[in-house]
């Protein structure tokens, strides 16, 4: 042992390279030890663990060793052998390469490694070779590279991508961490040139199997890049960018129409043949070598690269563009309730990881801060440089509106003022999950200290909780359900903060000043006896019940329940929806004015006079509540009605399940290991576990 330690000190215990390293064969020693060791014995270090060794990569096992299969030739060797010719590329070959790159990019979005898809192309690994001989393909490769960089940046910063969604491993590939600014400006004119060239090639009627689709594919790429630019752009000018996206969408539709027309003229038969074809060999295009990057795949063996078919890739990209469009609809959102509806609606789309990342990036608070300011400055500088290079007028100067202008001019999208110092923090848009929107949700004043320190602390906590909830909603469905369940601990913690805030003197004084229709409990004993002690705790209970109900309903989508369990799951859903209904009604009864409105604005419209009072002088009608308060009250009523409807539907489904059971269509399960009560407790354990106390958990007997 001591000798080993002494020797280790001499060697230095590291991978020695170059001078100073020498090797002594020990094959004989290992053979002798193999013979001497008793069966089942090992020679190992003191810290060796078989448990850790379970994760070791087995050399030579194709399933584990990524570098096992494929050629051992380097990129330069393959190029020298002529695997990726740059001279004499026919238009047919060029189109085939472009189409295949598009398919590879779509495959990367859906889980395959970048090194096994897009950068399996020698042209992508060495694009400079194309600069002089094939400018069209060179422009296309630069565009694909730029979109890969942008998508990876978006996915990394969207914070909703999991390893099963997309593989972001890029070691050894020409993909920097930050999006390269200049290619964003350079690529678009190059892509326009490429689009025009592709249209020209299609009009020549070259009889390519990908003839009609290439024009649409290039237009897809252009519009996708424009949308990504919008997502990564600053808050000002989002509407302008949306218009440009709509224009590019129209351009895409027009090019698609042109390609469709061209297909109708002479390529119908080939189109049908292509549709009936099975998935082509993924690497049959020039320059594609399947395992050229096998040494760049990282230590953990990646999944086998599943390359999509051309049709599947087009369908995915089209749907992705649509989802990105819907993600940018968040700019029309005003208020927490509308934001929740937007997130729930988007989550139901089951969009891909790119669109989900974009959606979360837009609503995440951290996206609108110093990082956003630097990105804004970078983008403006890039566009200015690109405009100077192309000679077009620069429209990149975007205003930096104040917070107050956000609220007042949100509907009109008015932009005035010149671009302020881009180095300063860009104020967050009104839909961002931050203090302003959450204070509006709880009818608390935005200014710190106005309702007391407990209320401020509660407000800070619900910003975090709501942000976590939004992130959970934009994960893939499996992770979403799990994260919703784990988020219940956060809501339980928030509930305690809400109780403290409800009982604090400062908050009670604030509610009296603002004339909330809420009578606070006199003391803690009375508070404990109250079913709904305060407005803030009631709001938290409503949110918690909504989260629990969504968690249960996701189980149906993921096919986690047996038919015999449907009845109890629907029953619990109806209970939770009932809690939402009641809490919405209770919050409506509090008549909380939004943002501390004045006394006059809080009075509800006067009731019409009774029949017996016709002779009396009519009292002057009370002023109507302000718009935000009225909107809030209306929203609560709508939530109550909606949840009552859903609760009734769930109860109907419970009765249906029971009827099916009575009719013998859904037989009783054979429970070998646990009883029905135990299964109930296991199924809803997350709702019954402390510190979660509200909504009140339901027992099996109920």
């Amino acid at each position, binding site marked *: 042992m001591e*000798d*080993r330690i002494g*020797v*280790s000190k*001499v*060697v230095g*215990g*590291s*991978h*020695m390279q170059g001078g*100073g*390293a*020498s*090797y*002594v*064969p*020990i*094959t*004989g*020693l*290992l*053979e*002798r*030890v*193999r013979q*001497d*060791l*008793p*069966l*089942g*014995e*090992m*020679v*190992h*270090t003191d810290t*060796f663990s078989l448990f*850790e*060794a379970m*994760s*070791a*990569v*087995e*050399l*030579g096992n194709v399933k584990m060793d990524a*570098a096992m299969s494929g050629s*051992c030739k*380097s990129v*330069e060797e393959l190029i020298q052998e002529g695997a990726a010719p740059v001279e004499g590329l026919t238009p047919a070959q060029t189109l085939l390469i472009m189409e295949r790159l598009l398919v590879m990019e779509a495959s990367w979005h859906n889980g395959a490694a970048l090194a096994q898809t897009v950068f399996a192309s020698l042209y992508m690994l060495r694009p400079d070779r194309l600069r002089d001989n094939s400018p069209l393909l060179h422009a296309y490769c630069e565009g694909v590279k730029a979109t890969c960089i942008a998508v990876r940046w978006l996915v990394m910063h969207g914070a909703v991508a999991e390893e099963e969604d997309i593989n972001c491993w890029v070691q*050894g590939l020409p993909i920097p961490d930050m999006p390269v600014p200049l290619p964003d400006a350079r690529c678009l004119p190059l892509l326009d040139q490429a689009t025009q060239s592709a249209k020209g090639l299609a009009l020549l009627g070259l009889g390519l199997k990908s003839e009609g689709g290439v024009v649409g594919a290039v237009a897809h790429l252009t519009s996708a890049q424009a949308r990504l630019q919008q997502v990564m752009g600053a808050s000002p000018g989002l509407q302008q960018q949306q218009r440009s996206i709509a224009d590019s969408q129209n351009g895409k539709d027009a090019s698609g129409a042109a390609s469709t027309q061209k297909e109708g003229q002479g390529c119908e038969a080939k189109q049908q043949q292509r549709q009936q074809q099975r998935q082509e060999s993924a690497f049959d295009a020039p320059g594609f070598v399947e395992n050229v990057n096998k*040494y*760049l795949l990282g*230590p953990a063996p990646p999944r086998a690269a599943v390359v999509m078919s051309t049709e599947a890739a087009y369908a995915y990209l089209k749907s992705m563009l649509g989802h990105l469009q819907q993600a940018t609809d968040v700019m029309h959102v005003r208020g927490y309730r509308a934001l929740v509806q937007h997130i729930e609606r988007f989550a139901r789309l089951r969009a891909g990881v790119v669109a989900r990342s974009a959606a979360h990036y837009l609503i995440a608070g951290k996206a609108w801060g110093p990082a956003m300011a630097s990105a804004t400055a970078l983008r403006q500088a890039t566009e200015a440089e690109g405009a100077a290079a192309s000679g077009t007028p620069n429209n990149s100067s975007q205003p930096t509106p104040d917070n107050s202008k956000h609220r007042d001019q949100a509907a009109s999208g008015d932009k005035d003022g010149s671009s302020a110092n881009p180095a300063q923090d860009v104020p967050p848009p009104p839909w961002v999950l931050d203090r302003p929107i959450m204070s509006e949700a709880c009818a608390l004043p935005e200014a710190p200290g106005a309702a007391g320190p407990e209320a401020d602390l509660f407000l800070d906590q619900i910003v975090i909780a709501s942000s976590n909830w939004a992130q959970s909603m934009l994960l893939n469905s499996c992770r979403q359900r799990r994260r919703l369940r784990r988020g219940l601990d956060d809501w339980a913690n928030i509930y305690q903060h809400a109780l403290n805030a409800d009982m604090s003197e400062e908050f009670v004084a604030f509610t009296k000043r603002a004339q909330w229709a809420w009578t606070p409990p006199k003391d803690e004993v009375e508070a404990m006896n109250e079913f709904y002690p305060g407005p803030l705790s009631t709001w938290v209970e409503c949110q918690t019940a909504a989260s629990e109900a969504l968690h249960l309903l996701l189980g149906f989508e993921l096919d986690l329940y047996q038919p015999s369990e449907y009845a109890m799951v629907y029953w619990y859903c109806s209970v939770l929806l009932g809690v939402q209904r009641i809490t919405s009604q209770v919050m409506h009864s509090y008549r909380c004015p939004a943002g501390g409105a004045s006394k006059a604005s809080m009075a509800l419209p006067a009731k019409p006079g009774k029949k017996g009072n016709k002779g009396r002088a009519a009292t002057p009608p009370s002023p109507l509540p302000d718009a935000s308060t009225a909107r809030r009250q209306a929203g609560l009523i709508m939530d109550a009605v909606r949840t009552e409807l859903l609760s009734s539907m769930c109860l109907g489904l419970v009765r249906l399940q029971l009827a099916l059971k009575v009719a013998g269509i859904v037989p009783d399960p054979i429970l070998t290991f646990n009883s029905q009560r135990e299964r109930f407790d296991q199924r809803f354990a997350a709702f019954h576990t402390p510190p979660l106390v509200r909504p009140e958990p339901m027992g099996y007997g109920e």
Partner: protein
Amino acid sequence: MGATHDQQAHTSESSNIAQLKSILQRFIRVTNPQGRIITGELLCVDKQGNLVLGKAQEEVPKAEPRQMGMVLVPMHQQKNVELQVALGEKLEHLSLQ
């Protein structure tokens, strides 16, 4: 006499294992039949001749070494196994062959 012979055999067995134990946690280089070269810390050797290497990296021609973490090298993947030594201690380790 027989007992003495058994004792000698046991001592010989122990010396092989003891020698192997002396080079645990040392860096070794494994060359597989396909010519791939893996270097790493020797952590474990079993009866079947499998090697477990820690901090393993694969030498890639004209490129950065590929980090592989913990690697298990089966017997059939061991064309040549060498111990990394300093020049000064090469002579004393020649007996390990």
